[in-house]
């Protein structure tokens, strides 16, 4: 978990959407470093820029300022071709929020799992051999391979998506709200798998609007608010001693089994402070 050879280094990233008068800033000077094997939780509300951050790092959204290093390679100003070469090496992978939409409904689970390997140029036989051991890592049965995504449960589908991200043995996986579309039982299952991945060599950026699901998995938590990174520190510190008002509000708003109504006035005070 050293940071001297980071997997991802983002410096002063700025992203704008729209043109001319409708131009607005989605990311404002975001800097973040992800060490090898580190799990970083990226928290923020809808529209705070979490997904934009992920899409910019993946090269899906152009950024207007800043620098991005992926596994030591400077991808700032990469052409489409250079991006494709980088992606084919499978260094960085991405897991979407909704596995039903990110898996081709007409392709079998096996087809979806081997796809990144086939794109890379592996033979079908090699690719199939590689995905088998992965299935047990995400607690899936071999039987599911000839099925279609529509024939699986939501939790199984998301585990397939995680397995698909793992097939190229990436250095970094960005997971965009990987458990938000799942029911609580499946959510726990997928979170367990992510925890188990921590022992592997892979770094994770776990994007969520829900502090609760990130808290148990992440080594470090970064909080985004209105396109800016407002807090970034070890998970325990961020949860027990939040520095920024927004983080305190976020923690105060996390639903607990005990009624959350007790500290409603405290949250109202924090909200007033935030908007001031």
């Amino acid at each position, binding site marked *: 978990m050293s940071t001297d050879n980071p997997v991802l280094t983002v410096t002063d990233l700025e992203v704008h959407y729209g043109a001319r008068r409708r131009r607005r800033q989605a990311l404002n000077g975001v800097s973040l470093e992800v060490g090898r094997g580190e799990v970083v939780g990226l928290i923020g509300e809808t529209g705070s820029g979490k997904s934009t951050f992920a899409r910019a790092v993946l090269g899906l959204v152009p950024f207007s300022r800043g620098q991005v290093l992926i596994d030591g390679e400077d991808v700032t100003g990469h052409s489409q071709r250079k991006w494709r070469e980088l992606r084919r090496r499978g260094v960085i992978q991405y897991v979407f929020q909704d596995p039903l*939409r990110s898996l081709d409904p007409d392709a079998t689970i096996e087809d979806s799992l081997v796809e990144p390997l086939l*794109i890379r140029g592996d033979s079908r036989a090699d690719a199939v051999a590689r995905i088998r051991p992965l299935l047990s890592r995400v607690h899936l049965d071999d039987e599911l391979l000839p099925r279609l995504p529509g024939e699986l449960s939501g939790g199984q589908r998301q585990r397939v998506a995680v397995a698909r991200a793992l097939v190229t043995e990436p250095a970094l996986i960005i997971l965009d709200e990987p458990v938000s579309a799942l029911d609580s039982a499946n959510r726990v299952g997928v979170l367990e798998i992510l925890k188990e991945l921590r022992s592997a060599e892979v770094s994770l950026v776990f994007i969520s609007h829900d502090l609760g699901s990130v808290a148990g998995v992440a080594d470090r938590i970064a909080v985004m608010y209105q396109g800016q990174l407002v807090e970034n520190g070890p998970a325990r510190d961020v949860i027990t001693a939040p520095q920024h008002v927004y983080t305190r509000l976020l923690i105060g708003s996390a639903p607990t089994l005990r009624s959350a109504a007790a500290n409603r006035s405290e949250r109202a005070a924090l909200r007033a402070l935030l908007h001031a």
Partner: protein
Amino acid sequence: MTRRVFALGTGRLAVGILVFIGLLAVLGPYLAPHDPLASSTTTLAGSSWKHWLGTDYLGRDVSSRLLAGSRTSVLGSVEVALVALVVGVVPGLLSVYLGRVFEWTSLRLADTLIALPFLVFAVAVTALLGNGITQAMLVVGVLVSPLFFRVSRAATLAVARSQYVEAALISGASIGWVVRRHVWVKVLPAIAVALAQTIGVGFIVVSSLSFLGIGVQPPAPTWGGLLASDLNYLHFQPYAPIAPAALIMATVWGCNLLADAIRDVSGENGRALVNTRKARANGARLLPVESRTG
């Protein structure tokens, strides 16, 4: 895909019909018992051992004319469909991927083709390339191609913006890969339906063009041409149009059945359908497949 089509009863029936029509097209001219162009004095005769389907207004043997005309008719309509397919589908797929200039140009070209007056264009091209069935069908094919262009473009657009295509791109897929692996399967059923429809239209067009002296020249028989001339002698031979009409209908029906079968078995629903039938045949108790939104 082929195996799944054969798993459906309608798929087998469709292929059976089309194979029969295909055999007629290949062997028909050799099977004709009489010279299809030889006229005789026995005009408008009823069915007999010598003339199975009787004779027409010039005393020509109808069954021979049907058999001899099968090749021209089938080849003509297949040519229309293939030309339309190639001219329409390829730019339809590419218009989504090759950038704005190509997209705009191909769209305006398709609009222009739709707006072109059919007959004027056909006459102009036959004047340019010479009169013949191939040239005429080329014209028809090009004029029908906007249908294929629109259908394939619409299907491609729906897939191109999907998350699984984005997921493939994130893994470093090229446009060619995305089209082969993800787009083609979704576009195929729509194209199959358009293709079946076009083959049907082709039959009608082959005959209506011969009316105008474009394409097939009058003494040469086609199914559509037979139907047209039979209609003029309806009060002498009310049953005469039945034979050519039945052949045209069978072909169009076979194409439509096949298109339906392809649509039914493609995609998730199709697989479920075939699997369900198999399971039922094996006597399995069926549990509902989990809904896609689940």
